[in-house]
């Protein structure tokens, strides 16, 4: 490594992140911490307390009479806006249904979920706004609520959207081979079903806070979002402004996991800002956060057939998906569950059919590893069930059936009945190695393990693999790198840092590409004004897509530097060499700063001169778009060891380890953090997290009743194993690893339960009471 970098490869790999100290010392400024804009007023939402009700009338007279209250937006005060405009992460892609099926600005005739936006009060202070919300009298006529797939498809089920013939939102199907023949030929056929409930992402920062400023020359939204460009089209559609006048700025984001999207409340705030010509600020509450978005509920019913050696011959899957009150993520999530329903296995004949319905629940959309939490729980639990039925060790079962390095998933497939070549990458990892790493992490091969344990509890171990699709979709990504007169590189981009270290990753990519010290790299705040497109920090794409764009921008900057050097000191650009952070020709050598300053007419003003490079990246979408542009697989493995008290059903996770194929690790602590963080999130989803609806409402939608694991609940150590073969499509051979562990924990625990007490559950989360029912200690449910 050159002297200009000043750090060894190892130091770069383990560098202390800039945001760490700021975060643990409370200095980081999230959206709620941003300073007040002059003239700021405050919005507070009026939300439905019912999951399903007709709005008979809204009387806001008493609220509007409160001193300090400036107005309301509701169905009676719309400023001429179309309330049925599509809002949300997938708005603009989903209009295939009745006008009411997409999530819209405000509830008009009825509310369709507990938390549906009925209006927004705007007032001089946040306190006044909240008090006024309590004074808005909304008269509801309660309607019977639909809370499950079964409710939704029952004869004479209440309709969530009366302009549609049924509660069916969409369907999907996907297959290859001949499943019926495969099942008929199978030696062992296992039937099973696995239900994944609705869950909430639960970022530490609530969902819904924003600052909306309808200025005279630009419309600015300060949003904690992972997709800065996503809201622009919706603002254009609702307000009819030019897209170049809309600007989204992203402060630090306190966690997202898919939840930090544009909400109807944010659009209502913008509408109020337009009306009053004052900035409108909304402080979201935790209760609203729970009522903004969710993970889909899904029942996976399968028939799996294996031959005498325990090799899969066929897998037939039916999915019953529940998308909640509006279309939102219905199409994408249904597809994602379908295309991951076979896990990571070699299955000659596969078929999946899905039906997705509306219910009166919080509309579901993206959720870390979107769709794969549902499918991975099912297929990985199923593999252990099949192994047990075929009399094979679950590890052997996986070694025998998992796709091998270089192996193709299938040669062709039929997507919704149309045949396509299966043009996805061949398997790019070695599952045997991933399994070995995860198993070693919990000491699986330790022969001294006693079962039952000395305290009488049953001990069990389980493993689960993921076929997380790396860097899915995303269109074209741009980044710009600017070299200033001090030799510093400024990275302009639109990739929000959600806490996982995007900013740090980009800093390291730029430092390594330009061979300069990371302190010389300044990663700017993500925003949209510069027009550098990015689909968003999601789908595990950021390291690959934005990392490549920044690397490309650095290369383009180097070309500019060579041109500038040639202009300043003679010769042709190609005679100049940019290496080790210096610009050289024969025995001439200049710093990058000197090259930048050579362009200025007044060299004393260092900041006046700049050189820029633009970089981009995209991956060609696959032919049938089943995978929407998949450039690598990015798999992972998880192993757990649990202790089960047969009498009380209590399950303790004693050990948990994760492994992933990172291609090339760019920043080791961030990679470990992602894998461990995913494991801890997965542990919550596996053991307690479930949104519960009863009596026309969500009944546990607050952090007090919806329990998450804390530091006291998780194993002290979560070992992480990594494969690095430098074969990823990202910068320096990197792959995405953000979402590989969270979906694996539930099935790994379920399989460990099977190992410990001989039964597994057919639904998540794996609770003590359910274990007691499954083992027969308590009567059947």
């Amino acid at each position, binding site marked *: 490594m050159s002297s200009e970098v000043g750090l060894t490869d190892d130091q770069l790999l383990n560098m202390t992140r800039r945001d760490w100290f700021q975060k643990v010392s409370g200095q980081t400024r999230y959206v709620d911490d941003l300073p007040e804009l002059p003239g700021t007023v405050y919005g507070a939402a009026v939300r439905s307390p019912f999951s399903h009700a007709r709005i008979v009338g809204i009387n806001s007279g008493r609220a509007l009479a409160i001193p300090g209250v400036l107005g309301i937006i509701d169905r009676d005060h719309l400023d001429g806006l179309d309330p049925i405009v599509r809002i949300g992460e997938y708005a603009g892609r989903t209009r295939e249904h009745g006008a009411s099926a997409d999530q819209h600005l405000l509830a008009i005739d009825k509310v369709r979920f507990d938390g549906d936006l009925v209006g927004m009060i705007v007032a001089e202070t946040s306190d006044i706004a909240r008090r006024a919300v309590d004074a808005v009298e909304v008269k509801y006529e309660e309607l019977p609520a639909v809370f499950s797939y079964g409710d939704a498809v029952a004869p004479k089920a209440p309709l969530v959207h009366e302009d549609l013939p049924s509660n069916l939102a969409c369907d999907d199907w996907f297959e290859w081979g001949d499943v019926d023949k495969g099942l008929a030929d199978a030696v062992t056929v296992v039937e099973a079903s696995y239900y994944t409930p609705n869950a909430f992402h639960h970022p530490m920062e609530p969902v819904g806070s924003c600052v909306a400023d309808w200025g005279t020359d630009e419309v600015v939204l300060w949003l904690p979002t992972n997709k800065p460009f996503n809201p622009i089209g919706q603002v254009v559609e609702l307000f009819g402004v030019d897209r170049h006048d809309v600007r989204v700025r992203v402060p630090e984001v306190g966690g997202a996991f898919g939840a930090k999207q544009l909400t109807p409340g944010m659009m209502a705030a913008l509408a109020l800002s337009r009306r009053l010509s004052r900035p409108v600020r909304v402080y979201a509450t935790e*209760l609203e956060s729970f009522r903004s978005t969710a993970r889909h509920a899904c029942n996976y019913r399968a028939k799996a057939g294996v031959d005498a050696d325990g090799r899969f011959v066929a897998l037939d899957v039916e999915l019953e998906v529940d998308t909640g009150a509006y279309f939102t993520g219905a199409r994408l999530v249904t597809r994602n569950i379908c295309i991951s329903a076979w896990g990571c296995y070699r299955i000659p004949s596969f078929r999946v059919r899905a039906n997705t319905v509306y219910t009166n629940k919080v509309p579901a959309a993206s959720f870390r590893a979107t769709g794969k939490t549902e499918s991975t729980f099912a297929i990985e639990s199923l593999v252990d069930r099949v192994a047990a039925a075929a009399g094979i060790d679950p590890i052997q079962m996986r070694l025998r059936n998992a796709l091998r390095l270089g192996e193709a998933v299938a040669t062709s497939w039929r997507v919704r009945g149309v045949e396509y070549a299966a043009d996805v990458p061949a398997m790019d990892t070695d599952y045997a190695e991933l399994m070995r790493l995860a198993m070693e992490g919990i000491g699986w091969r330790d022969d001294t393990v006693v079962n039952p344990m000395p305290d009488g509890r049953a001990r069990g171990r389980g493993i689960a693999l993921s076929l997380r699709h790396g860097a899915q979709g995303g269109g074209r990504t741009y980044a710009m790198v600017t070299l200033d007169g001090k030799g510093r590189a400024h990275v302009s981009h639109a990739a929000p840092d959600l806490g996982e270290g995007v900013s740090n990753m980009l800093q390291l990519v730029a430092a390594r590409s330009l061979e300069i010290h990371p302190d010389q790299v300044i990663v700017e705040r993500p925003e949209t004004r510069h027009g550098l497109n990015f689909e968003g920090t999601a789908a595990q794409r950021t390291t690959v897509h934005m990392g490549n764009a920044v690397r490309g921008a650095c290369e383009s900057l180097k070309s500019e530097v060579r041109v500038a050097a040639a202009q300043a000191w003679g010769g042709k650009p190609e005679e100049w060499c940019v290496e080790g952070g210096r610009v050289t020709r024969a025995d001439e050598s200049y710093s990058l700063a000197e090259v930048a300053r050579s362009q200025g007419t007044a060299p004393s003003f260092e900041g006046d001169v700049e050189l820029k490079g633009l970089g981009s990246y995209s991956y060609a979408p696959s032919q049938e778009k089943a995978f929407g542009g998949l450039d690598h697989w990015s798999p992972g493995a998880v192993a757990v060891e649990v202790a089960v008290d047969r009498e009380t059903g209590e399950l303790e996770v004693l050990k948990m380890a994760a492994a992933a194929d990172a291609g090339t690790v760019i920043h080791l602590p961030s990679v470990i953090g992602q894998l461990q963080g995913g494991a801890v999130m997965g542990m919550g989803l596996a053991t307690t997290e479930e949104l519960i609806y009863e009596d026309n409402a969500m009944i546990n939608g*607050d952090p007090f009743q919806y329990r998450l694991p804390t530091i006291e609940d998780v194993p002290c150590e979560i070992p992480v194993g990594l494969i690095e073969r430098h074969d990823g499509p990202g910068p320096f051979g990197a792959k995405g690893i953000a979402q590989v562990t969270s979906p694996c924990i539930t099935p790994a625990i379920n399989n460990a339960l099977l190992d410990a007490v001989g039964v597994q559950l057919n639904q998540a989360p794996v609770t003590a009471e359910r274990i007691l029912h499954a083992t027969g200690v308590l009567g059947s449910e």
Partner: protein
Amino acid sequence: MLGSLEIAFPATLEDASELAIEAGDDASFYAGGAELAVLLRYGLASCRYLIDLKRIEGMSATVRVRSDGVATVGALATHSSLASNPNMVEKFPALATAESRIGNVRIRNQGTIGGNVCFADPSSDPTAPLLLYDTELQLRSAKGARSLRLEDFVSGPYQTALVAGEILTELLARPLGPGWRERYLRIERFTRPTAGVAVACRLEDGVVADVRLAVASATSRPSRLRQLEKELHGLSPQEALTLLQGSREVLSDLLQPHSDLLGTAEYKLHLVQVLLRRGLELCCEGAA
């Protein structure tokens, strides 16, 4: 998010009491705020005024064991201070165990025993062991003072015998004394107890001479199982355990557990039965 609240800092107990009477439902006493802040924050409770009890003369956080062995516990004593007090660990081990397991370290450092008892959250750890010690509560208000047994104090979920303006100042716990063994056992779901059971037993000549059983969390109010205690008298440990093993119906009648997010009544009943048996087993261990 927590809306704005006014906090009053009365200097005397009488002032505090009168303030509370005046404000009615709009006001709430607070000491640690560990329970109240959570509910206010998530909109599960509401009030506009808080009356701080920490600066009032006569309110204390002192934990003392008197010469007659009775522990006098100031209502402001934090859970951590009780969990780590050597006298409590020695003379009131079941309570010390329960206190050491409440919530998380922040709640234990912030929350008070008085707040926990007065809040009457059905998921309470300390009330079960406190019932073993026939705990008596000292209540004071502008109108006077009275004492009430803990057993008669909690009347239901979040409901107590406190009248307007009344403040819990001190708890008196009677130690079980020589020959007794006691245990607190609980089943939790991420720090919140689903069932908590306190068991104390004294064996004499190989039989149960005295036994106390108390249950909290699984039921709407903490309670002693006196009927079951009577049935255990004079039994050998083995006979007593067998009796508990078959006590499901008796327990069901006595406890009437409620179904909630932590589990169904059937499950909680099962847990109580298992914990009672395990508690007694541990108390009798090595003694038989």
